[in-house]
């Protein structure tokens, strides 16, 4: 007959031994870490031994007292607390996240034990005491357990999805969902199904999912995502005449709330014209105030795909090295429109005005005057 205290110490010994093994095998071990963990194992085994030989003996005598008349229901908290303790130690030598998990587990254990201790002393009626305990702890146990369950599924599942290819992802997704529904259907049409079978299925599924999740995490992201993250290719504008592989993929064709825009640039019959807010008629130049974000809409009314490029002078990128400042819309098809926000800090150097033009359409440009 073990008391919760000795259970805790047994568990902590076991877990620290386990984490020592894990540490030596998986993490790049350092002498300090190893010493710490070995010390921990030694200390906890000693304490466990002492407790087992002394405290448990007393516990047997105490059994007459009212408070412990009925042994509390089997509790997982000693295990959680011990796990927390080991996690804290492992965390100090590995990563902070592990440390935080450990702290949370220890805090949870402390709360559970404190409330249990309180409630067990509150009256002579065990069921009443249990109800007091539940009143305090159920409100936190239900949502937290539910949340942990949900979090494990979400996390594992999303890791698996991230690791496999895009097409396989959709298939895996639908297969998983169908499997869930089918199992539900199966159980509901065969209510006489043995409980143990259902439990086995559930446990297997859970272990499988978590295992797959951890494995996928080790595997990392699928390749195209890694490449995308490295190259950031959608943000890299390519303002030339040709269609670029990434920047021109997936074109937006409409703009909402166009009423406040500074000017609308249209390509009609090979001609580039500007309609400026508030000014009658078509213009061949627009005024953009310096240091001020100005919104321009480009509308393509010609057959074929065109983009609007803004040539905004040069900027110095290193000593003596100048680079053209160019920004542009995507290649858009006939009837489509796109939004371009320009912020120009300096007036143009005389003789080299800023311009808006359409690559591939020669001799057409709108001068951007910056006073």
């Amino acid at each position, binding site marked *: 007959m073990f008391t919760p205290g000795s259970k805790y110490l047994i568990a902590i010994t076991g877990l620290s031994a386990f984490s020592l093994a894990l540490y030596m095998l998986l993490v790049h071990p350092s002498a300090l870490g190893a010493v710490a963990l070995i010390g921990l194992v030694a200390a906890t085994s000693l304490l466990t031994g002492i407790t087992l030989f002394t405290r448990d003996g007393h516990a047997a005598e105490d059994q007459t007292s009212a408070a412990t008349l009925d042994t509390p229901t089997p509790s997982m908290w000693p295990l959680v607390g011990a796990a927390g303790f080991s996690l804290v130690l492992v965390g100090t030598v590995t990563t902070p996240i592990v440390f935080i998990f450990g702290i949370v587990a220890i805090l949870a254990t402390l709360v559970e034990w404190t409330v249990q201790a309180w409630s067990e002393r509150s009256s002579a009626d065990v069921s009443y005491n249990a109800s007091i305990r539940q009143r305090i702890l159920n409100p936190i146990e239900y949502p937290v357990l*539910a949340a942990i369950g949900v979090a494990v599924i979400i996390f594992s*599942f*999303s890791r698996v999805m991230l690791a496999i290819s895009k097409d396989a992802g959709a298939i895996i*997704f639908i297969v998983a969902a169908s499997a869930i529904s089918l199992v539900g259907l199966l159980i509901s049409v065969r209510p006489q199904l043995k409980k143990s079978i259902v439990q086995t299925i559930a446990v297997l599924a859970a272990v499988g999912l978590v295992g797959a999740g951890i494995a996928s995490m080790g595997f990392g*992201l699928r390749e195209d995502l890694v490449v*995308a993250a490295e190259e950031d290719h*959608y943000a890299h504008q390519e303002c030339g005449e040709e269609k670029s592989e990434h920047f021109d993929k997936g074109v937006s064709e409409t703009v909402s709330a166009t009423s406040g825009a500074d000017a609308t640039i249209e390509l009609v019959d090979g001609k580039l014209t500007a309609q400026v807010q508030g000014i009658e008629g078509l213009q061949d130049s627009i005024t953009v105030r310096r240091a001020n974000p100005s919104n321009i809409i480009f509308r393509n009314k010609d057959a074929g795909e065109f983009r609007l490029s803004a040539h905004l002078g040069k900027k110095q990128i290193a000593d003596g090295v100048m680079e053209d400042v160019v920004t542009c819309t995507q290649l858009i098809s006939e009837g489509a429109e796109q939004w371009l926000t320009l912020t120009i800090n300096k007036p143009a150097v005389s003789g080299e005005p800023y311009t808006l033009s359409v690559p591939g359409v020669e001799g057409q440009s709108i001068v951007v005057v910056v006073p």
Partner: protein
Amino acid sequence: MWFTLDNLATAHDTHEGAAHSSTGLSNVKLGMWLFLGTECLLFGGLISTYMLYRGRVGTGPRPSQVFDIPFTSVSSFVLLMSSLTMVLAVSSAHKRDDKSTNLWLVITALLGATFVGGQVYEFTAFYNEGMGFSTSLFSSSFYVLTGFHGVHVTVGLIMLLALRGMLKNNKVPGSRAETVEMIGLYWHFVDIVWIIIFTLIDLIPA
């Protein structure tokens, strides 16, 4: 998030009961419908924001560059399926079939969790493709809109699983069938909102 938790509370906060009600609806049900009405306005505001800003991408990716419509269609279908299983749970609850109720609640939650898992996957993928939360107006409004919906689903999941535990341990004060029905109402609402969001985001091109 508070709304939905409060709902769960609403679901048990009846003291006059249906017998006295002037409209014939129970207080809880009337309250739930009103709450869902207010939620419509909340999502209405978020959807308007998204519709206004979806074309404003700055130098970030555009919607059609990152969206994976086949995948989102599949995951929308999964969420719709969970509405079906929720209907089964509610009907079992009305038949006082505890075993089936529990089963279908869990199945609904699992399908819902699969959906949220899919959303987390998509968000991570988008992030890697260069679409961070503060990259552009489009990305901010996209994440806020779908994120709010995701939070609603997640809260629904926690309520479903907690309800399952409470039913099992006989902890539900008030009518069990009505409690399941209220959470069901919420769940269907969240599903319908997703159908609207999915249509606007993925099916109508920007």
